């Protein structure tokens, strides 16, 4: 009797369950898009942003001088708040002419002094901006940032009048116009920032000029962007975008599959083989190269023949096939889709050649035995998989046993940095890294391996290489000559010296419903949400 009662009760509770769920469905409208931002943006203050999540939100809420046209393959730079610009013949003075119909969300006009304030703020040592160095080509900017000069008026950033903004460079670098697209250099409201301090980026205070405005921010969980109806350009098609911060990719996928999200920007690697044939799976390559670097100061890797052999012994296709992410195997550093990309450069897979090079270096049967070496990577599933594959390939093709070691991310970056000071004391001989283009210009990749670069952990340096890269950097008006110089530099870096071994060009994977229109992947992984609309 009692049991029966309990059973009935349980059953009715279950019915209630299913009823509530049925009634809750079908509330999705065409006005609101559900988007996974993945992580909490560390900041929405453009001067301080130094990560992709922050940039994604800032790009959609703030408009800078210029922007990319992602429909063009070479990513043409197009006007935004600047309606036009003039570059002096020498290439060192940039004058931007601003539109006079751009308004802040509180109704004030966006003016050149707003840009001047923002650009000067980012190089101010007190702001302590990580990305201050992007303006180091501007006259006196570096000196000001380093405290060597005190007068900000000496820096080459000036608002000539309300709608004319002028920047003077120390050297006519080829990539400067790319810098002007940076979300970190969006105009800023001095009065608002001074009034609210650090809290100015909270939705109740923030003043922006982009297609969306921030209306709600529940930290670590969700932020809401709503259409800016006073936007000067083509108004956003969506009324509202709800961005969640779901870090766990498999959770995001589950939520996507249960229609709680419309766009996820990441697919769990092991789910890719299953999903990649569905129409909602999107994949594209971006300007980003995965490479392994060799510590050339270590005895085992000091011989260029050994390094070349290590490169020739890797079948990169085997790795990309295994990962199944659509990454493009590459033996060159400058990625596909960028000026200077040349697939014929680099050492291709050739085990016979690899063995020969090892012999030339004095290792092999009847000769020296190869000393034990270690490949270090930061702890992650993908890197582990790649490292294990490399380990087995080197063993198979060179007969060399490479030890694997991994470190937690911060410990890892610290190890790489400290290897500069004491290259022989490090516990590792080989490391991994990826480089993600800051802007689509080859200098962004090539200057990494100059002898003075903080990002060059190979301990290899060559004056010749430095000179070529510096020369190419200033050849903005002669692309052909520039490409020639980069070919020369890449050959040196990858074929003769082989200090780094590029493995593949990253692909990014996203999923969005077919109802989402206007979305397209681009090589810089930017998300212009104002171009999206929904048809459900």
């Amino acid at each position: 009797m009692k049991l029966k009662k309990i059973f009935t009760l349980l059953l009715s509770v279950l019915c209630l369950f299913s009823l509530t769920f049925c009634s809750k469905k079908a509330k999705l409208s065409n006005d609101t898009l559900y988007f996974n931002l993945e992580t909490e943006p560390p900041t929405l203050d453009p001067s301080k942003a130094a990560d992709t999540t922050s940039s994604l939100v800032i790009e959609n809420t703030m408009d800078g001088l210029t922007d990319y046209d992602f429909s063009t393959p070479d990513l043409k730079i197009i006007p935004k708040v600047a309606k036009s610009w003039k570059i002096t013949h020498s290439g060192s003075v940039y004058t931007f002419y601003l539109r006079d119909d751009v308004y802040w969300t509180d109704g004030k006009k966006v003016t050149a002094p707003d840009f001047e304030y923002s650009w000067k703020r980012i190089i101010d040592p007190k702001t302590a901006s990580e990305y201050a160095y992007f303006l180091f080509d501007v006259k006196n900017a570096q000196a000001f940032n380093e405290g060597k000069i005190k007068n900000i008026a000496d820096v080459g950033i000036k608002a000539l009048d309300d709608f004319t903004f002028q920047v003077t460079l120390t050297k006519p670098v080829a990539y400067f116009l790319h810098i002007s697209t940076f979300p970190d250099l969006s105009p800023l409201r001095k009065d608002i920032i001074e009034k609210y301090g650090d809290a100015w980026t909270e939705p109740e205070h923030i003043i922006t000029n982009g297609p969306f405005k921030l209306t709600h921010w529940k930290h670590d969980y969700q932020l809401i962007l709503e259409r800016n109806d006073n936007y000067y350009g083509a108004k956003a098609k969506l009324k509202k975008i709800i961005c969640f911060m779901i870090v766990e990719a498999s959770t995001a996928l589950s939520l996507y599959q249960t229609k709680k999200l419309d766009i996820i920007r990441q697919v769990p690697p092991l789910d890719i083989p299953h999903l990649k044939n569905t129409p909602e799976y999107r994949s594209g390559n971006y300007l980003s190269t995965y490479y392994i670097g060799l510590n050339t100061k270590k005895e085992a890797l000091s011989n260029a023949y050994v390094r070349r052999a290590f490169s020739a012994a890797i079948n990169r296709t085997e790795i990309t096939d295994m990962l199944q992410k659509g990454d493009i195997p590459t033996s060159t550093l400058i990625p596909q889709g960028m000026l200077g990309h040349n697939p014929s450069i680099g050492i291709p897979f050739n085990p016979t050649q690899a063995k020969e090079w090892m012999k030339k270096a004095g290792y092999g049967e009847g000769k020296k035995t190869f000393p034990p070496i270690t490949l270090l990577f930061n702890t992650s599933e993908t890197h582990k998989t790649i490292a294990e594959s490399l380990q087995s390939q080197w063993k198979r093709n060179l007969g060399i046993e490479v030890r694997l070691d991994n470190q937690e991310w911060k410990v890892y970056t610290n190890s790489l940095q400290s290897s500069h000071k004491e290259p022989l004391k490090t516990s590792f001989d080989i490391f991994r890294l990826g480089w993600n283009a800051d802007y689509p210009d080859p200098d962004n990749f090539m200057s990494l391996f100059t002898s003075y670069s903080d990002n060059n952990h190979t301990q290899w340096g060559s004056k010749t290489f430095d000179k070529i890269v510096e020369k190419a950097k200033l050849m903005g008006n002669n692309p052909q000559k520039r490409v020639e110089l980069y070919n020369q530099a890449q050959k040196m870096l990858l074929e003769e010296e082989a200090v780094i071994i590029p493995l593949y060009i990253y692909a990014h994977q996203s999923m969005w419903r077919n109802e989402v229109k206007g979305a397209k992947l681009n090589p810089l992984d930017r998300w212009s949400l104002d171009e999206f609309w929904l048809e459900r």
Partner: protein
Amino acid sequence: MNTLWSDAFKTLSKNKPALLSLFFIIFIILVALFANLLAPYGYEIQNPSQRLMFPNRTFWMGTDILGRDLLSRVIYGSRMSISVGLIVAICSLIVGTLYGSLSGYVGGKIDNLLMRIVDILYTFPSLLLIILIRVIFGQGLFGIFLALTIVGWVDVSRIVRGQVLQLKEMAFIEAARAVGVKNRFIIFKHILPNILGPIIVTLTFEIPAAILSESFLSFIGLGLQPPFSSWGSLANDGFQAFKSFPHLIIFPGFSIFLTVLAFNLLGDGLRDALDPKLKNA
């Protein structure tokens, strides 16, 4: 004393779940010991052409993303998981028992001080310690043992201290003290043998706890790393794709489940068997 243990064994042998668990644990330990004989393939042999296969006749548990046989990896994984469990539990037990019995026996201000230290360790962000240990001692097994022991002994010391406090009040100990028997003698001859029961019970609970802690470390990326792989790290590898390739998480997960369950049931059985108060129940 002897009758207590033989009585305990009798009680235990009547407890079917506990007995079954004991046999299962022995089985798993044998698997771990003879992994190299039992595993059909090497645990790191990659078959690029046979990646991510579902369980089939050649690969009973399927293969992983590198085409490695999951059955072999689970068999070898038992080595890591069981040794992490055993070593960490035994080390925690030794440290915790010594510390706890000292604290409980000496009592007074020293007890208070020692327990405050335990309080501090209890609230200390153990993750920091674990990262630091892994940096100093490398990513090998030793780092894991040390890290988990440092986190694990604190609980043991509390349990032991409680037991010692109870015992201390008992007549025979008080008598021994009154007669002037040396403290060390009392601790080793009277106290420790009398709390051996609870200690063994604690051991059976600490082993599965250590296995689970290791899998948590794997989840946050601080667990065992190649070439080692434990059930925890295998399950974590599979976690990312539990919808597409459930076998990658189910087999190692099920191994954890059974082993931890067995240790717990055995522990419960032992506790019932060793508790003199339950004799006449």
